[in-house]
């Protein structure tokens, strides 16, 4: 009976309690939003910091590689070209005038031979720095040339095939792609113990795909990501930086048959930066 005798609550109490609850709800929503944004901001700063650290590592790797390249060049010139030229100079001394004709002729011929060797050496150093085939005939010829040289050694069977490369990319992009392919091939030759390497090029929807297959011991994407973040793997970091410049992507995986390791390079056919600049100029 007691419960049946319920009286309606006073409107004041309903209003005050209801309004208080609504204010608490509103306050809760606002505080939640502010805290949530702080969390999102913190998370975003963490990601930015990680990105900056990664950039630092890539930059250091790039500088180290450059220094190694310079040291190699200096060593080649100092150890090979230097002694050859010094020897040639020895033959061409003041006493040459006092020698008889036969000895004089022999000295000149030997000096010429030494100079020829030096020219060959300097040419090789120069070709390693910037292959003339790449500049004059393009990426397809340079890679074909490179693969022919590798095959010529008899250790590995290397072949390449360009399916759709009628229009050349600009020189800068071709050089970057060539360096990436060169680095990948060097790594395969050094570490994978493969017996064949095959490169194919395709064009699909304004994107160039370069795929390298080999039957040796390769790395997968997880290994590449791990080595990229560590202080080792200088060459891979360089590849990563170069891909970033071209706004391309590289992936390491096994092919469908799970027999061969496959490296896929994907890059836009036209340089996005150049296209943007041209669009701006036309506008």
């Amino acid at each position: 009976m007691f419960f049946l005798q319920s009286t309606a609550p006073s409107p004041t109490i309903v209003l005050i309690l209801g309004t208080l609850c609504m204010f608490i709800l509103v306050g809760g929503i606002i505080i939640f939003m502010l805290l949530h944004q702080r969390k999102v901001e913190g998370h975003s700063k963490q990601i930015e910091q990680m990105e900056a650290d990664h950039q630092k590592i890539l930059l250091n790797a790039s500088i180290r590689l450059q220094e190694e390249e310079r040291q190699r060049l200096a060593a080649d010139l100092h150890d090979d070209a230097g002694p050859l030229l010094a020897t040639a100079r020895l033959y061409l001394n003041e006493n040459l005038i006092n020698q008889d004709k036969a000895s004089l002729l022999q000295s000149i011929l030997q000096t010429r031979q030494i100079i020829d060797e030096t020219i060959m050496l300097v040419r090789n150093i120069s070709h390693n720095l910037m292959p003339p085939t790449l500049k004059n005939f393009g990426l397809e010829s340079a890679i074909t040339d490179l693969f022919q040289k590798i095959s010529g050694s008899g250790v590995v069977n290397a072949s390449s095939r360009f399916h759709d490369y009628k229009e050349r990319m600009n020189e800068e992009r071709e050089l970057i792609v060539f360096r990436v392919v060169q680095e990948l091939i060097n790594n395969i030759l050094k570490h994978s113990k493969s017996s064949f390497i095959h490169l194919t090029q395709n064009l699909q929807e304004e994107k160039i795909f370069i795929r390298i297959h080999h039957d040796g011991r390769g790395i997968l994407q997880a290994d590449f990501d791990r080595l990229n973040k560590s202080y080792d793997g200088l060459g891979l970091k360089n590849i990563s930086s170069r891909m970033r410049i071209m706004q391309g992507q590289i992936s390491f995986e096994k092919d469908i048959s799970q027999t061969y390791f496959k490296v896929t390079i994907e890059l836009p056919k036209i340089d996005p930066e150049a296209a943007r600049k041209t669009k701006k100029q036309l506008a």
Partner: protein
Amino acid sequence: MSLLFIVFQIIFVSSVNTGRLDSIPIGIETILIIFYIITLLFELVNNVKTPITKHYCFWISVGILIYLGGSLFFYLIIDSLKLKEIATYGKMTYIAEIIKNVLFGLSLIVYSKAGFKKEIQQEIRPAPFLDIT
């Protein structure tokens, strides 16, 4: 959802004999607006570039939330109140309205500051290259 609410309102007004104010549409409308504001605030929060308090929409949303919070229950029970009670309890909603208007004013200040900053950024042009040879 807004379309659904408009359809509901048309049906309600045409079918129900309304008194002074309709508690049910007000209640549903308030819930809808609170839902929209929460969605907007989530969008603002996920935009990490600007702090949420520097966005004028935040202050407008908070103002609307406070107003709705302060007046919802009054409008919900308004049908069962007498005219004298409406006049008395209606004054309680004035507090929420004052806070709402202050926050609207704050949003105008925030908006004008943001607009002023953009103008300054646009006016700063790099010095011309004076190659006088």
